[in-house]
């Protein structure tokens, strides 16, 4: 940023020390809780519950990670795989559905188009607690309790509305002439969509897909309501289940917290730029 030399004292203060102190404080505030959790996960039981508090692990150990991962009571590797499966299927299905719907809304003029967009926006505002009792009744009637399907279908209730909304934004930004000329050259709508539009919208679609994955990864309430067996729990539900077992074991629990944070943190680092676009294009839960 170019700034002319100025005699404004407020300006000089704001440009110099205030910015630096502010940035340090901001980063520290955002990261310190994670750092504390990381340190906790590396301590053994004695260091963890030492009085006075011991800040740094003197004998750092990975025992908590191994404990959490292999424990027979709270099988973290199983929770991890459950989450991976549920979120991946949610991601693929949501993306397929919303690419079609987003394309239709962006390209076709039909009666009720604005109303439909409004419905998609409004559904994002609905609280998910509202859906728990009715969905539970519904899944019980269909015999889907303790299945991956129940979790995946339930995830659609909050992923589909915002991914459709995001896809409409991406498709609208692609000039219409491109596919019209493709259609004159003999493509029908579907082949034009697959060959011309999808490659152009690919970055946006990828961002939408990853975002659907991340939101599904965070989902807790459906996961605890629609599963009863330990083996069917997702990461979020599993972490809560670890708290419910006897006294809280902060060692393995903190290891579990770190393990469930890493995948979404990595995915999000890739997403950042697209995310801001998606956020400002429409409202997003999260």
């Amino acid at each position, binding site marked *: 940023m170019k700034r002319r030399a100025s005699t404004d004292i407020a300006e000089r203060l*704001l440009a110099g020390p205030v910015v630096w102190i502010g940035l340090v404080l901001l980063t520290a505030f955002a990261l310190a809780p994670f750092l504390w959790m990381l340190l906790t996960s590396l301590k053994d039981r004695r260091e963890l519950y030492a009085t006075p508090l011991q800040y740094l692990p003197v004998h750092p150990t990975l025992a908590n990670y191994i404990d959490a991962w292999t424990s027979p009571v709270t099988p973290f590797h199983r929770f991890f795989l459950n989450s991976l499966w549920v979120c991946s299927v949610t991601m693929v299905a949501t993306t397929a559905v919303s690419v079609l719907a987003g394309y239709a809304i962006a390209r076709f003029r039909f009666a009720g188009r604005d109303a439909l967009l409004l419905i998609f926006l409004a559904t994002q505002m*609905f*609280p*998910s607690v509202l859906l728990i009792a009715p969905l539970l009744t519904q899944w019980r009637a269909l015999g889907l309790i303790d299945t991956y399907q129940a979790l995946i279908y339930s995830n659609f209730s909050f992923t589909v509305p915002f991914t459709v909304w995001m896809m409409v934004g991406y498709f609208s930004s692609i000039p219409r002439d491109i596919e019209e000329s493709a259609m004159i050259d003999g493509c029908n709508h579907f082949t034009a969509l697959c060959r011309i539009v999808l490659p152009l919208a690919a970055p946006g679609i990828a961002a939408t897909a990853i975002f659907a994955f991340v939101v599904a990864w965070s989902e807790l309430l459906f996961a605890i309501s629609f599963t009863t067996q330990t083996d069917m729990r997702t990461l979020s539900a599993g972490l809560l289940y670890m708290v419910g077992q006897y006294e809280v074991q*902060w060692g393995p*629990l903190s290891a579990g*917290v770190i393990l469930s944070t890493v995948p979404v943190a990595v995915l999000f680092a890739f997403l950042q730029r697209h995310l801001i676009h998606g956020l*400002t294009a429409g409202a997003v839960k*999260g």
Partner: protein
Amino acid sequence: MTTLSVASARRRPFISWRLRKLLIGYAYLVPAALCLLATVVVPIILAIKMSLYADVLYKPQDYRFIGLGNYVRLIYDPVFWLSLWNSCVWVFGSVILQFLFGFAAALLLQQAFHGRALVRTLTLLPWIIPGVVVGLIWQWLYQPNYGVINDLLIRAGLMSERVAWLSSPDLAMGAVVFANVWRGIPFFAIMLLAGLQAVPDELYEAAEVDGAGVLARFRHITLPLLRPIIVVATATRIIWTFNYADLIFVMTGGGPANATQITSTYTLQQAYSTLDFGYAGALSVVLLLVMLSFTTVYLRITKGVEAEQ
């Protein structure tokens, strides 16, 4: 179509082409519509129906139609009214603080410095991690005996003895709001940052030439230009915070003595722990009505904002 003769295809190409296009459009919408029908529309209708029945999961023999009975119960339920009040404290406490700190963060992250991309990503972290993780991290930080917050405050001489943050009725709400503020700052930061980046530099430069100081520039350029995005971000956040139950559910479960019970956690408790689906249904309908009125106001406001632009 391809088997038709050329002449008949030419005779009425326009109508059939438009009709076909329309049908294709609807066909593309079917999967998304089915998803929402099965997971949102039908459940909401089911919730409305549930609210009219005495429907406790483990008492199937008592299942019967009771009309507005659950709603009458709601009116005489002091916890429900308390939860509405708590929701207000929770929503406005969280959103106001998130906004102020988020705005400050956006202004900081807007500056040019080395490693800006990295700092932006790192400060975003609290917002993207699962709610249950946020809850557990803060539960551990607040832990009375081994929590680092008590320890730091005592070492700094700000407190003389350990405090049970989450199990004392006076402190619990403040404690969960603070954790939620930590989580929500990045949301405002990235929204407002996107807004800041859209403000043309020339405006600032011109104002500087005219002798406007940094505060005057902030008041007369930054704030008015950011107004639309501030309105949208705040409204979205208010609605979302009102709905959000995970964090409180994990940290306090609405306790101690309902001190942190907000309407959404109360609904969750009725559906998940008490298994009183009839009552949960009535609470859901109330939540839905509150949300719909919020959303209507929100849409009005955003429409107004768009019209201004």
